[in-house]
């Protein structure tokens, strides 16, 4: 939420009565007290609204009033109350979810503290955007729309509606998705702008939200995942269904709204594009359903290779360091983790939002403990020697960080994609662990999966059979892999730029 709001702020002209901050539909006169960009300014404005006796509900003719708590998780004051229909509710909740989802895709993401990162990024983004010239890339279709700067907004309603379209765009153009969607949306918007001002008002509000959403892909830490989950799907859906997402500047939306009772305008179909549904609307699973198919390949790729939990995420270090002193034990430990991960991921996806996040995490730990107990029994029955070698580390699989790291991703995705993700991450982890264990075995005890490969005159480097050496080697290998990864990414980026 916070990031969306921040995105809006720079575009709000000083003279806007009660701009997007609480998007309330209040017939405030044009010459209403200036609205500042700062939070304080917003608060002041709100106070003035209250002063005039125009409480949010008074203006909201249609729909319920959704009020987000006084303070969100980023510590920003969220004096946001949006009136109106269910799409708005989507919108409200969606960015929040989106922000969470954004980070939860990173393998080692921790459940809670993900939000601030997004918020910080958005802040940066906002700066970047603010720095961009407004008049830059206006899509051809938009040429029809009168282009005006937001400084002129106050003139007439019609004018204000119109300029909003081209203005909003250039700011958003920096993301490729937006650029793609722009034409269709823009044309639609211009059409709408002609007939229904309220619509436009609404569209502006949405538009302001949208850019941040669309930005997410490139702001996300991992490019591959960004297009795989939220971003791509959302973008495509936008293009199809939502005419209004793009164009508006946030500043105007509120104003427009103020002019029009928001009641009528029920435009946004495309809001469903938001990747996650509001906690209040759990039954809205259907929009997620199409997701799993598309990202399956990239899920696999990133779980196994590009974001391997062990090498890049440094998740599940303890099995690597303590248990994986040889290839065999490493393989066994990896399979244990894989099995536990599949079960917990599936469960997390099925449970989804039905449980609060923390409770869900605790439940996942419990579930992993159940699985690992079973694994211990199975290992003791089938492979007693390996079970002895692993010792305490099989039960400890229950608290392997990998389950928690993937849990938040799974909870927000369809069971199929959660399953694929679990399989990919688990397999990637198990593979990396096995290789790592084999390397340690070769260096530390001059055997490979139990086979003697000792070279005369070359004594084993004993420390690598011990946890200390495991930690050392893991650090070195992970560092080397990251170095290669960044190099490759840099060269890829370089070639892309060269193409352009």
């Amino acid at each position, binding site marked *: 939420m916070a990031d969306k709001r921040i995105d809006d702020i720079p575009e709000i002209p000083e003279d806007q009565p009660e701009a997007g901050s609480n998007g309330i539909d209040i017939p405030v006169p044009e010459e209403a007290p200036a609205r500042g960009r700062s939070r304080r300014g917003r608060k002041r404005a709100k106070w003035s609204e209250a002063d005039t006796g125009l409480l949010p509900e008074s203006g909201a003719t249609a729909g319920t009033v959704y009020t987000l708590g006084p303070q969100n998780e980023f510590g920003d004051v969220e004096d946001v109350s949006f009136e109106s229909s269910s799409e708005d509710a989507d919108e409200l909740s969606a960015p929040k979810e989106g922000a969470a989802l954004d980070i939860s895709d990173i393998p080692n993401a921790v459940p809670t503290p993900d939000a601030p990162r997004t918020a910080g990024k958005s802040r940066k983004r906002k700066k970047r955007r603010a720095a961009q010239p407004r008049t830059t890339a206006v899509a051809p279709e938009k040429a029809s729309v009168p282009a005006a700067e937001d400084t002129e907004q106050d003139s007439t309603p019609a004018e204000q509606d119109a300029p909003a379209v081209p203005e909003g765009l250039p700011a958003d153009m920096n993301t490729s998705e937006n650029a793609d969607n722009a034409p269709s949306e823009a044309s639609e918007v211009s059409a709408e702008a002609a007939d229904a001002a309220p619509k436009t008002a609404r569209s502006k509000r949405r538009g302001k939200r949208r850019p941040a959403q669309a930005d997410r892909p490139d702001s996300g830490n991992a490019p591959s995942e960004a297009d795989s989950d939220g971003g791509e799907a959302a973008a495509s859906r936008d293009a199809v269904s939502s005419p209004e997402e793009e164009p508006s500047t946030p500043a105007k939306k509120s104003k427009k709204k103020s002019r029009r009772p928001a009641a009528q305008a029920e435009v946004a179909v495309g809001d469903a594009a938001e990747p996650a549904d509001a906690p209040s609307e759990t039954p809205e699973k259907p929009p997620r359903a199409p997701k799993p198919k598309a990202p399956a390949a990239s899920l696999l790729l990133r779980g196994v290779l590009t974001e391997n939990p062990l090498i890049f995420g440094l998740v599940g270090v303890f099995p690597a360091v303590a248990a994986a002193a040889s290839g065999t034990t490493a393989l066994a430990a990896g399979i244990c983790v894989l099995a536990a991960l599949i079960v917990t991921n599936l469960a997390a996806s099925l449970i989804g939002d039905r449980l609060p996040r923390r409770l869900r995490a605790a439940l996942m730990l419990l579930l992993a403990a159940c699985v690992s107990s079973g694994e211990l029994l199975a290992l003791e029955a089938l492979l007693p020697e390996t079970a002895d070698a692993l010792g305490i580390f099989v039960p400890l699989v229950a608290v392997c960080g990998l389950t928690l790291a993937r849990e938040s991703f799974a909870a927000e995705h369809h069971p199929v994609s959660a399953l694929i993700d679990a399989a990919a991450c688990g397999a990637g982890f198990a593979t990396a662990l096995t290789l790592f264990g084999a390397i340690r075995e070769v260096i530390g005890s001059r055997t490979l999966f139990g086979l003697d490969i000792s070279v005369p005159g070359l*004594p084993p*480097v*004993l*420390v*690598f059979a*011990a946890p*200390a050496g495991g930690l*050392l080697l893991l650090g*070195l290998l992970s560092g080397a892999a990251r170095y290669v990864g960044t190099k490759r990414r840099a060269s890829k980026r370089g070639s892309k730029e060269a193409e352009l």
Partner: protein
Amino acid sequence: MARSNLIPKARQNPLARGSGSLRRSPAPHLRADVSTRSIMSDVLIALSPMLIVSVFFYGFRTLALTLTSVASCIAFEWLFRRAVKKPVSVGDLSAVVTGVLLAYNLPASVPYWIPVVGAAFAILIVKQLYGGIGKNFLNPALAGKAFLLVCFPDVMQTWTQPFEHLPLFGSFEAETAANPLEALKNGLIPDDSALELLLGRHAGALGETCALLLLFGGLYLILRRVISARIPLVYLGTVAVVTLLFPLDGARPLEWMTSQLLSGSLVLAAFFMATDYTTSPVTPLGQTVYAVGCGLVTVFLRYFGGWTESVCFAILIMNSCAWLVDRIRLPQPRGGARDGR
């Protein structure tokens, strides 16, 4: 740092020639002929007599080992700095000191690849990966020694008797000798007399045996103000007090104490490695606490640890605590009357 020469050095600034001219220059205005290089040179000078004695004890193999170690340290440092495109810092001689100290901690009978491996670990992983000189959190030579000890305990704990000269090349069968530490470990007073321990006529690493020369070297460093006497004296003092108070198995306390002090690499480490600027605390109080900690951990590990030589582990442990120790401050009352009331 050395404060030996605080006389401003006449600068060869063409704009400022002549006795009466005014000069403008950025601070600091008091300049001394002290640099990393000069400090390291002093350390090398202080260490060099021991090398001669080790050649006298074990033959030229010790010299060859030391040269191998120094050459590998320089080579690794140079290669790494070149690889990461950073200014090559070989010229400050810190790698040479690391190489010499690493070699001094090896038994004379080790194969030549041992110092190479140790140097690779010390320079590449402990020193350069953390950013090079002044940024490592462990003493590179000690960390290299600990790594070798943990990786190759057999090779690293085979001692030979002094005056049994080892061949430069090829395999050899040398008569192994008992390190006095092994006797101490078992609660026995070693066979070597205190004088033998002091003069170095006992089994041990090639550069740690002759405590007398090392003491002279440490004295030289203290007089040159390269190191302060606080850390080595407090370190040795702590070991002396604790071993005097708690001899194992009812050994005679004084004898026990002198054997503990003079055997192993305690003297070498106390003067040359515990005093490493980078890895020791800065404040006087911190240095005292650090040195006491080194002494206590050394004795503790010698009494209860699994390794015969524990000095390197003790100092490494305290190295990693140095940042914490530096934060120790005695509370100072602020305000109030001057007489404290």
